[in-house]
């Protein structure tokens, strides 16, 4: 009985992240439009887009291989699994000990690996351009992310997200400089990983500026729908990750009952809204940078991550 209710909660979590992800994208788009004094599409436009894409034919390039057709499902599934493991409204879900923070990052790495391969499959120059730039950004983002994980693991004594979240709510955390620096580094990595301004522009179709869009240029119909859904899921995942580590308030504990779950639910929605709003605000305030400025941006994240780790050692020894 306990197992069944635990499984049901896990299934609810999986369904929740998938259903919320397009709404988050729609919310950010709407907010950005309003900030730019435009009317903007409705909040539920991403759902309509997805449904329309699902109804359309797939137009497949002549020499596309099986990898090109399998990749969208694989990318979506891997991102979904990673999102299902991150605590959203409750900690200690049944599959949360399947993978720790390092494994979640590696899972997203798998999704990126197949996306980059799919970009090269048709054999156009744009696909290769996107893939090679994406992998360059990833090589810079991954070490920064790992140093952030180190800092967190050193503070909380664990790489398990549920444990980290539980530790962060406890009073012994206090205000730490290291955590603040780690938060900034994590946000920078999240921006790069999600192909947002200033690293990449999610709305562009201009050849010189695109990274993520260049890879998925040849996709259409249901395949494109899966890729788009996976992309918004990834954005949701990163915001949830930042929320559960740095603002783990009102997260329901293991098997806390429906009331606590409901409170956690509302808190989670509020966190998502705040995170999305901040992202929209940031994106309207900055301009996209040249691709070879990205190493400097992510190099700063790397330095911040290292600094956070070192500060922690220094503060501990005092």
């Amino acid at each position: 009985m306990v197992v069944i209710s635990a499984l049901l909660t896990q299934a609810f979590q999986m369904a929740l992240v998938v259903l919320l992800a397009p709404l988050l994208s729609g919310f950010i788009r709407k907010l950005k439009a309003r900030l730019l004094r435009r009317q903007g599409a409705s909040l539920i436009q991403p759902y309509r887009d997805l449904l329309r894409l699902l109804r359309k034919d797939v137009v497949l390039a002549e020499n596309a291989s099986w990898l090109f057709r399998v990749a969208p499902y694989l990318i979506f599934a891997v991102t979904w699994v990673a999102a299902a493991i991150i605590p959203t409204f409750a900690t200690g879900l049944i599959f949360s000990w399947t993978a720790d923070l390092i494994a979640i990052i590696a899972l997203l790495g798998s999704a990126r690996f197949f996306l980059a391969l799919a970009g090269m499959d048709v054999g156009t120059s744009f696909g290769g351009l996107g893939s090679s730039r994406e992998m360059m950004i990833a090589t810079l983002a991954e070490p920064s992310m790992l140093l952030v994980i180190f800092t967190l693991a050193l503070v909380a004594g664990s790489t398990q997200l549920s444990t980290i979240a539980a530790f962060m709510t406890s009073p012994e955390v206090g205000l730490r400089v290291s955590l603040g620096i780690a938060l900034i580094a994590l946000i920078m990595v999240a921006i790069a990983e999600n192909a947002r301004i200033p690293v990449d522009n999610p709305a562009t179709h201009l050849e010189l500026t695109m990274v993520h869009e260049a890879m998925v240029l040849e996709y259409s119909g249901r395949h494109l729908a899966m890729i788009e859904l996976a992309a918004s899921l990834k954005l949701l995942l990163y915001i949830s990750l930042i929320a559960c580590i740095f603002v783990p308030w009102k997260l329901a504990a293991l098997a806390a009952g429906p009331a606590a779950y409901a409170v956690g639910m509302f808190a989670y929605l509020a966190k998502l809204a705040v995170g999305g709003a901040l992202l929209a605000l940031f994106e309207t305030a900055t301009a996209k940078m040249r691709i070879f400025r990205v190493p400097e941006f992510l190099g700063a994240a790397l330095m911040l991550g290292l600094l956070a780790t070192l500060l922690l050692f220094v503060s501990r020894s005092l």
Partner: protein
Amino acid sequence: MTPAVALLMCTAAFLGTAILAVAIARSNWATRVIYSASLVASGVAFAIALVQLSSAGVAPLASTIILPLGLPWLGAHFRLDALAAFFLVVVDLAGLLASLYALGYGRHEHAAHRVLPFFPAFLAGMNLVILADDAFTFLISWEFMSLASWALVMAHHRDADNRRAGYLYIVMASFGTLALLLAFGLLAGANGNYGFTAMRGAAYTPSTAGLVLILLLFGAGSKAGLVPLHVWLPLAHPAAPSHVSALMSGVMTKVAVYGFIRVVFDLIAAPAWWSGIIVLMLGGGTAVLGILQAMLETDLKRLLAYSTIENIGVIFASLGLALAFKANGMELAAALALTAALFHVLNHSFFKSLLFFGAGAVLTATGERNMDKLGGLIHRMPVTSIAFLVGCVAISALPPFNGFASEWLTFQAILESPALPQWGLKILVPAVGGLLALSAALAAACFVKVFGVTFLGRPRSTAAEQALEVDRFSLTAMSVLAALCLLAGILPGIVIDGLAPVTLSLIGDRMPVQADIPWLSIVPIAESRSSYNGLLVFLFTLFSASLTAYLIHRFASRRLRRAPAWDCGFPEINPLSQYGAGSFAQPVRRVFGTLILRVRERVDMPVPGDLRPARLTVETHDLIWEGLYLPIVGAVGFAAEKLNHLQFLTIRRYLSLVFLALVFLLLVLALWS
């Protein structure tokens, strides 16, 4: 019959096969006979070693035998313990699969009589190094292994590149053996105890232990490919036939790792804490430099050899961690780091053999090693491409495959570092962790390039267009390795438990028993700290992928049309307009290459109206080669030039030279006492 005797019989069988090969090498059926014999012998040796390793948990094993060979008063000592059994498992499993692969691949060999005798001899040499229990036998076997592999590198000696590779290899191998000889001389001490048993009992001063460590880093490091002793490796490993390349890259480097572990962890009982620092820094630097050069490479086999350098760096970084923990008495953390290193040894032998086999298959099918002339092979070679893809995913350390499991363990060991008392180590270890993460990310980029350029896209040459799938033996060998990559990735607990006797014998502690943990998770320290479940990740992904695919195909439109690629409305007809190996690497080259490899790009753009073509020139300088090796080469040349005059002296001058030398020696003798 004790297991050690049985394993020596297998080695004798390898040597017998080698002799048989000399006799029959020119007949038509020689290939089949020799590789079948190697297959049987390595299969038996693998089975014995595996049984020994798995039963080692029940009773600590050490089966010893002394043969009346070698030096008259010494004899040849052989010993099988948990460490040797594990490395024999690695060597003989790869030998078994390489023989299987060669049953098909070897048929295309045009100079079979130069390969067949040395292949079993090479396997015999590696087995003997691992079994040796005295310094003399160890060094003889080590040299035998080096010479056999050198002969295999020189199999196609008419190619000038191969001759150069062979020359560099033999110089570096001799240098390495010299360093090992000195190291064993130090360990043997004034009494001349050449047996490992006597060395193990002796107590060494920190300075002796430190000197031995440095000499070992030269000796074993040059064989394994540690930076800056790696320069021969990317030339020599690809020069051999592909099944031999797989053994040299996937296994012989591991024999070097074995030699390092045997001496540093087993013979020297108490390492100094700073030995960890040296090994860690070398490991981290080797990992990044190796994968960076792989990223810039366009030759498929040479790229794989560079990637071996990266993996050796990862292994040595874990070994350095284990040394640091061991020196500070943190046995559990040391066991964790050593397990991570050994796990990666096993994993690398799986996926590097697989990738070299795949490169061999591509070579057979197209005759090309240059990736910029390949492409689109996924349509022509379906099974090879799937196996190769598995190898690429595994080596990029992505879950649920095996590369991730060992990488994860390494990171868990790194997270234990704050408990270290020394400040140098405390700060260095997270930095090396960052380097390892960078090399893992670069590896993913590199293998996207390899698979994307070689197997995906449109064919860039007629050879790639007309490629055909390879024979069944090769495909079987590759499929078995691909399955092993997945199995070791989703069931890491079994491997960790299998490695427990090794860490128990070397460090005196082991990781917690993983078999008792429910759901086959692995938990290095405690469940609240960290846990990972490869099987669940695999099943979970499989479940959600099939659920999604089912739902989409059930409810969404299933129609599909084939049409020309869209490509932003500007489809290019010429397949050379695709991204190639060089262009894919360009962003990474610009970001990372400018400092270490001195990459300089120059664009020669004619003014508008001028009809000259625009040109992009890329210059790379290998700083290690130019800064370290070229001066040595120059100094040796200079000295040789000067000493050359001594050949043409008159008899009077020769006599005075002899006289002076005699006086000098007598002086030294007089001052010495």
